[in-house]
C-alpha cells in the first residue's frame, strides 16, 4: 500500500514537471530564435509523461501498448516528413487523429462506467464525445478539401443552416438525456454518430479561403475535447495541455476572422459563394494594361523598394523557390525587397511564412500587414503573386462589396502595381478586384512559377 501510494506521488510529480515543460514550450515559441528549444521542452515533457504513465498502478498489459506506440510512430514519421506545401492538410489530419483518440477513449470510458456515471462527469464526457466526434469528421473533410480530393467550392443549399443546427441540437439533447439517465447505453451510439455527421455537414459549405479560420477553430475544438477528457479521467496534465491547445486555437481563430472582418458564425454559417454571379458580371467593359516578363524585370530592376505580396496562388504554383531567386537577383542589384504577409494569405495561419522560409528567404524580410501598410506609398513596385481578395481596394471603399471592411494590404498605394495572374477570371470568392483596372497596375498574365523564372532570367541578362 505504502509502495503504491509512493509510486502514485512519483507519477504526479512527473506530470507536474511535464506540465511546466509544456508551458515553457509554448513560451519559447514567441520568437524564432528560441522556438526550437520549445520543441525540445515539449518532447522531453512528452517522454516524461508517457514514461510516468507506464508506472501507473493496475497495468497488466504492456505488449499492446508497445504495439500501438510502434504503429503510431510508423504512421507519424511520414506525417512529419510531408512537403511544406502540404502542411495545411497535414495539420487538418492531425486534428482528426487527436480528436479520434479523445472520442475513442471517451466511448470506452462510458461503457466501462455506465450506469454509474455522476451527472458532472457525464456532462463533460458528453462534451468530450460531441466535440471530439465533430472535430474528427470535420477535420477529415477539411483535409480532403485542402488536398483537393473534395471540391474546394462551398456547397450550399436552402435550409442548410437549419439542418446543421438541427443535428447539433439533437446531439446536445441526447447528451442531456444521458446526464439524467447514464445507464441508457442504447442512446450512446447516437450521441457519437450524430456529431460525426454534423462534422461533415459543417465543412460542406466552407470554401478554401475560409480554411485558415476553420482549421484554427477545429484546433480549438480538439484542445477543448482533450481538456474535457482530462476531467473525465482525472488527469491534470491533460486538462492543462487541452486548455493550452484550446486557447491557442481560439486566439488564432479570432485573429483569422478579424483579418477577414467576419464573425465565427459568419464563417461557419454564411458561405461566400452566393455573391459571385452579381459581382463578376460587370467586369467585361473595363480595360487592363498588361506587360511582358522583360518589361516587368526592367521595372523591378529600376526600383529602389519592392514589396512582394504572396498568396495561395504562389503555393499552388510552387513558385516560392523561383521567388527566392528573384529576391536574390534584385537584392544583388541593391533593390530593397520585402514581403507583405496578410494574416489569411494561404490556407492556414502562417502558411506563407513557412513556404518563404522553406525557400530560404530570411524571416526579417517578412512583414506583417500592420507593419508594412504604411510603407506602400513609398514603395516603387508592389508585386502581387497569387493573392487576390487580400489586395482588393473595394474592401476599403465599396460598401456593397461582400468583403467591405476586411483589412487589406494597401498595394494600390504603391507607385506601380504588378499582378501575376493566370487570367482575368475572378478569384476564389468570385469578387471582382478594381485593383486590376488602375492606371498604375500592370497585369502579368501567366503561371506564377514560369513567369517569375522568366523575370529572373531577364534580370540576369540585363546588367
Amino acid at each position, binding site marked *: 500500500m505504502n509502495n503504491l501510494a509512493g509510486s502514485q506521488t512519483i507519477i504526479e510529480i512527473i506530470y507536474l514537471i*511535464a506540465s511546466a515543460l509544456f508551458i515553457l514550450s509554448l513560451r519559447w*515559441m*514567441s520568437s*524564432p530564435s528560441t522556438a526550437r528549444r520549445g520543441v525540445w521542452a515539449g518532447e522531453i515533457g512528452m517522454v516524461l509523461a508517457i514514461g510516468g504513465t*507506464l508506472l501507473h498502478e493496475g497495468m497488466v*498489459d504492456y505488449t499492446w501498448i508497445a504495439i500501438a506506440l510502434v504503429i503510431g510512430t510508423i504512421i507519424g514519421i511520414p506525417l512529419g516528413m510531408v512537403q511544406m506545401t502540404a502542411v495545411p492538410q497535414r495539420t487538418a489530419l492531425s486534428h482528426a487523429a487527436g480528436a479520434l483518440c479523445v472520442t475513442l477513449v471517451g466511448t470506452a470510458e462510458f461503457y*466501462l462506467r455506465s450506469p454509474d456515471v455522476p451527472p458532472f462527469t457525464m456532462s463533460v464526457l458528453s462534451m468530450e464525445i460531441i466535440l471530439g466526434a465533430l472535430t474528427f469528421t470535420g477535420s477529415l473533410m477539411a483535409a480532403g478539401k485542402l488536398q483537393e480530393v473534395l471540391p474546394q467550392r462551398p456547397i450550399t443549399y436552402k435550409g442548410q443552416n437549419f439542418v446543421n443546427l438541427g443535428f447539433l441540437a439533437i446531439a446536445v439533447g441526447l447528451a442531456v438525456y444521458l446526464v439524467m439517465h447514464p445507464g441508457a447505453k442504447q442512446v450512446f451510439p447516437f450521441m457519437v454518430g450524430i456529431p460525426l455527421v454534423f462534422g461533415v455537414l459543417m465543412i460542406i459549405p466552407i470554401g478554401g479561403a475560409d480554411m485558415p479560420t476553420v482549421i484554427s477553430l477545429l484546433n480549438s475544438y480538439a484542445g477543448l475535447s482533450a481538456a474535457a477528457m482530462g476531467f473525465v479521467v482525472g488527469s491534470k496534465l491533460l486538462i492543462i495541455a487541452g486548455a493550452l491547445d484550446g486557447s491557442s486555437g481560439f486566439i488564432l481563430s479570432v485573429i483569422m476572422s478579424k483579418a477577414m472582418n467576419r464573425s465565427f458564425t459568419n464563417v461557419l454559417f454564411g458561405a461566400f459563394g452566393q455573391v459571385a454571379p452579381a459581382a463578376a458580371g460587370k467586369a467585361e467593359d473595363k480595360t487592363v494594361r498588361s506587360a511582358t516578363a522583360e518589361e516587368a524585370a526592367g521595372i523591378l530592376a529600376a526600383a529602389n523598394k519592392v514589396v512582394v505580396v504572396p498568396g495561395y496562388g504562389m503555393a499552388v504554383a510552387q513558385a516560392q523557390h523561383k521567388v527566392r531567386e528573384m529576391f536574390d537577383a534584385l537584392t544583388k542589384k541593391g533593390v530593397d525587397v520585402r514581403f507583405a504577409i496578410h494574416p489569411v494569405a494561404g490556407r492556414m495561419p502562417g502558411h506563407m511564412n513557412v513556404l518563404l522560409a522553406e525557400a530560404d528567404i530570411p524571416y526579417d*524580410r517578412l512583414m506583417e500587414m500592420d507593419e508594412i501598410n504604411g510603407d506602400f506609398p513609398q514603395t516603387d513596385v508592389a508585386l502581387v503573386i497569387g493573392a487576390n481578395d487580400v489586395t482588393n481596394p473595394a474592401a476599403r471603399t465599396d460598401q456593397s462589396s461582400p468583403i467591405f471592411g476586411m483589412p487589406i494590404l494597401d498595394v494600390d498605394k504603391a507607385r506601380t502595381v504588378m499582378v501575376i495572374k493566370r487570367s482575368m477570371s475572378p478569384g476564389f470568392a468570385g469578387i471582382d478586384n478594381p485593383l486590376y483596372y488602375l492606371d498604375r497596375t500592370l497585369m502579368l498574365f501567366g503561371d506564377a512559377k514560369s513567369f517569375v523564372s522568366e523575370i529572373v532570367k531577364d534580370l540576369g541578362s540585363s546588367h
Partner: protein
Amino acid sequence: MLINSLFIFMLAGFIGFEVIKRVSPLLHTPLMSLTNALDAIAVVGAIVLVGEHKTTFSAVLGVIAVAAATSNIVGGFLITDRMLKMFKSSRPTKP
C-alpha cells in the same frame, strides 16, 4: 476534485492566452503543429485504457487511440522542428 479540475482548467486557459498572444504571427503554423503534438498527451489516458485491459472493447479502442495520438506526437514534433529549422535571419543571430 471536480472543482480542483475547474480551477486548473481556468488557470491553464489564462496562461495559454497570455503565452500564445506573444507568439509572432511568423510562427503561427509551427505553433499549431506544436500545440497539436502537445495535445496528443491524451495518449496517457489511452495507455491506461490499454494497460488496464478491463474489457476487450475498451482495450481495442485504446490501442487505436494510442496509435492515433502517437502519430500526432511523432509527426507533430518532427514537422514543427523541420519548419523551425528553416526560419533564418539575414542578420547575425543575437548571443
